[in-house]
């Protein structure tokens, strides 16, 4: 972790992934919470509408999934 950003190293593939601040915030909340919970959490922290953030959360999860960074 570097402040609000993160760099992930996938040992299986040797790939390195740079998560910007918003992606990193979402990544940190991926501990079994639902998308709605994550969106609500972030909306509360940022003062943004939860529905707007929900789209970003979904998109980020899709991208993390396609990068092979999500297990289970």
């Amino acid at each position, binding site marked *: 972790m*570097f*402040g609000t*950003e*993160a*760099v992930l*190293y996938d*040992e299986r593939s*040797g790939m*390195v992934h*740079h998560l910007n601040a918003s992606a990193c915030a979402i990544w940190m909340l991926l501990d079994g919470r639902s998308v709605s919970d994550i969106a609500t959490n972030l909306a509360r922290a940022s003062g943004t509408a939860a529905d707007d953030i929900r789209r970003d959360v979904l998109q980020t999860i899709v991208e993390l999934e396609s990068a092979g960074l999500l297990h289970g």
Partner: protein
Amino acid sequence: MTGRFRVGSFDAGGIPFTVETNRRDFGARVREIFRDIEIADAGLSPVEFEVLDRGKPPPEHPWSLCRDGVQREIAVADNYVLTYLLWEVTQLLFERTGGRVHLHGAALVHDGKAIVLAGRSHAGKSTLAAWLTYRGWGFLTDEAALVDPDSLMVSPFWRPINVRRPGPLDPILKERTLHGPLDAEVLVPASVLGALAGAAPLGSIAFPRFTPEEEVGLFPMGPAAALVELTQHFPGLIADGRAGFRRLARLVEAVPAYELRLHDLDKAERVLRAVAGNGS
């Protein structure tokens, strides 16, 4: 061709090695180009390189190279054999770094602090390293920067600089007489250009990019972006895995990193002087 003979003993970043060959002219060239890493005594168990002309006529490539009796390459071209030997020596260093991080980059010293120039081929690292050495910076290495992630000390490996020609260094190379033909790439002992430096603490990391359409400048990079960039110039990432990745992370946490946009060596040197030795 003659019988085999030992050319000399040398040091690759703390690893002693010897070179044997059966060609006097090649042996002389090795001693010329490796002059900065030649040592008096390789000790009891140096790594042994044998570089032999097999006597094969054209179009066959005549040279073979063995390391400690194991064949590494069987057919090396006459105009490439010295470069290939240097590559093998550098690979040897990369295999035996201990806990140090080895980066594909140059390293130089200014005001007691080292700067590592990491980047892809043709980014201008070696040309810049040669230029900085010529302009009074201390030369630590080209192509093989070794950094201890705990102490942040950058170790010297005074291998010759691989300078592409034609290029901005041509007038300098002409004024410093070099043995051998001036090919598209020449190996230049750093001592021909300037001073060799001893180990120095890492002060900063720069990623040179040749940008002819943009102004020369040094642009700070955040540690996350710098780490991503650095992983691309760390040959040992796959082999060292997570441990290697963490060692890299310690470097970007400890020192500032910059993107160096360059197309003018004078200007590049000026901007680098402003940060080197300052660590900020």
